[in-house]
């Protein structure tokens, strides 16, 4: 029964927190650009408005299925991601499972966009998959290093280790180099500038989103909430000690996302090949050094 409650609550919580994260991202951006920014409920308005469109354009069954895959992938990821008070299926899965699940939404997007027959979308999704290839390499190295350091791949155990030992045992303290590489890879994962190649409005007209309208676009907005939440929570869990309750946990998640959205507004975007070059050079290099240090210790 608790499990069922968890399964329902976890995506819900993720969605609500995700809305707040989106709001924060937009507000931070507005502040950097010296303006006021959107009202508090703006992310909700956007999503409801998109779902309340009276006409919809579907590009076939694959398009519809792909959107479900996209959202389903993230909802599954939420269930495997332990947060204070809610464990869900985290006992049964582990970090490796999570990394696999987090690839599902992007593949879903690729399937859906493929059936749109818009060249901008196709270019966009090929760029997105390339970018995924770029940031997944350092990310996997970071995760392997963290697992070796903690001696387990179970997220609940990882949280417990950090909780019992206090801040000195947080991943950020025991393996700072890996934590830094993780932060860089996280930034790439969020698809913000300078790694925004697959949205790139001025080049390919928002790429994968070109043909998305109404509820499909709404699903992408929901996905954005989940994406910010998942990435933030995963990083917090691995390196910032999780949290015994939401009061301590949420600020950490927001801080992780804040770093990313604050940095992104002062960069342009790299070209695709430069993203790969940069990602495989710096975060991967740093992560490998971190991994070596962890293995030596």
């Amino acid at each position: 029964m608790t499990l069922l409650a968890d399964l329902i609550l976890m995506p819900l919580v993720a969605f609500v927190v995700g809305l707040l994260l989106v709001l924060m991202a937009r507000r931070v951006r507005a502040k950097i650009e010296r303006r006021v920014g959107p009202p508090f409920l703006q992310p909700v308005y956007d999503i409801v408005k998109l779902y309340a469109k009276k006409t919809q354009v579907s590009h076939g069954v694959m398009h519809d299925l792909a959107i479900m895959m996209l959202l389903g992938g993230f909802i599954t990821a939420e269930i495997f991601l332990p947060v204070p008070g809610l464990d869900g299926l985290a006992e049964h899965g582990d970090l490796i499972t999570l990394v696999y699940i987090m690839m599902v939404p992007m593949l879903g997007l690729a399937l859906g966009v493929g059936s749109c027959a818009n060249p901008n979308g196709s270019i966009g999704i090929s760029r997105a998959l390339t970018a995924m290839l770029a940031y997944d390499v350092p990310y996997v190295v970071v995760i392997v290093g963290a697992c070796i350091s903690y001696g387990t791949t179970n997220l609940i155990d990882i949280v417990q280790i950090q909780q019992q030992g206090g801040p000195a045992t947080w991943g950020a303290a025991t393996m700072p180099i890996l934590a830094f590489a993780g932060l860089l890879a996280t930034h790439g994962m969020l698809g913000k500038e300078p790694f925004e190649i697959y949205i790139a409005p001025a080049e390919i007209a928002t790429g994968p989103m070109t043909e998305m309208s109404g509820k499909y676009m709404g699903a992408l907005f929901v996905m954005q909430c989940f994406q910010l939440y998942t990435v933030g929570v995963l990083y917090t869990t691995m390196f910032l000690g999780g949290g015994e309750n939401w009061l301590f946990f949420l600020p950490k998640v927001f801080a992780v996302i804040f770093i990313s959205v604050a940095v992104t507004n002062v960069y342009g975007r790299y070209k695709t090949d430069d993203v790969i070059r940069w990602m495989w050079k710096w975060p991967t290099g740093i992560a490998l050094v971190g991994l070596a240090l962890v293995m030596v210790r």
Partner: protein
Amino acid sequence: MRPQNYRPVAHPPSHEYELYFGPNHPGIEGNYAIRVRLKGDVIQEAIADGGYLHRGFEKIMESRLWIQNVALVPRICVPDPVPMEDSYARSVEALGGLEVPERAQWIRVLMLEVSRICAHLFTFGGNAATIGLYTNMFWGVSMRDLFLDIFEEITGARIYHMYITPGGVRRDLPPGILDKLSAVIDELERRAPEFDDLFFDSTVVMNRAAGCGTMTQEQALSWGVTGPNLRACGLPFDLRRDDPYLVYPELDFDIPTETAGDALARMRVRKAEVQQSIRILRQVIARLPSVKGPIRCPLPNPLAWNVPAGEAYARAESSKGELGFFVVSNGGDKPWRVHVRGPSQMHAVQVLENLLTGARIEDIAQIMFSLDACPPEVDR
């Protein structure tokens, strides 16, 4: 549902594909289109497609009085309207043998330079936005707004001033405007380092803009490139110096050049030009209070003004390059023929097509914005 009712059309070979870049595309400046044929990421062929902003200016100007056309000319180039007004006014003055009073000439220079700063700030913003640096766009546009306020106070309009008329300017400067203008200039100079940090010193911008859309000086000369784009190739050609008009000979300013000829060099030239414009404005502000006199020479009744027959070519250095008005009068109360030579007629068509061939899809917007192509000037 019925089948969609378009006809099947011939498709290019499967390894190539074509992309309609515009007119409804955020990477296009204004309402313009480029059809590109691509192989992978690389552009095989680019065909510029204009005419979306065609209003038939040259035709409707022939059916309006000389003085009525003052309202039409600024609308030819939207981001930088003042050089249009000035060139038209000077061509009519040359035809009618009018002598512009000195004070009006100084006021015109002030307007021209403020307009140049506005246009360059807009281009900074647009160019940064093409590579995802939206902060720069927001700052640049809001900075430009301060100058628009100055325009509004002088002329009553933010964008289309209709301020420069044949024979002088429409009205004198309001009191205290020079102080406000120098305050805005100081503000711009104070903010300039921020733009440097954000744009000109950014590694990402260096990475994207350096070597993008490069042309040599020979190419630029043979393609008819003018303005900042030509100066970025190393040739210090500036009509304000080489074919001086108004009171530019009395002003002290440099002509910045770069040698690289790529997108970065073009933006650097524009940045240096803004600094030179500030320098000119400072001189104008210092000088203007001491220049007394009328602001307009006496005109005949403008509603029945028959401009003597003849032809005149007036050119100005707009923020984009050489702007020319070729005006022919047959002695009537309306122009017989007005031909507008906008700098973008070269930059947005042949030059763009040449530079895009062989470039990559990421670079299209960057090249177009760094050329500062202005589609309404092409379409007229």
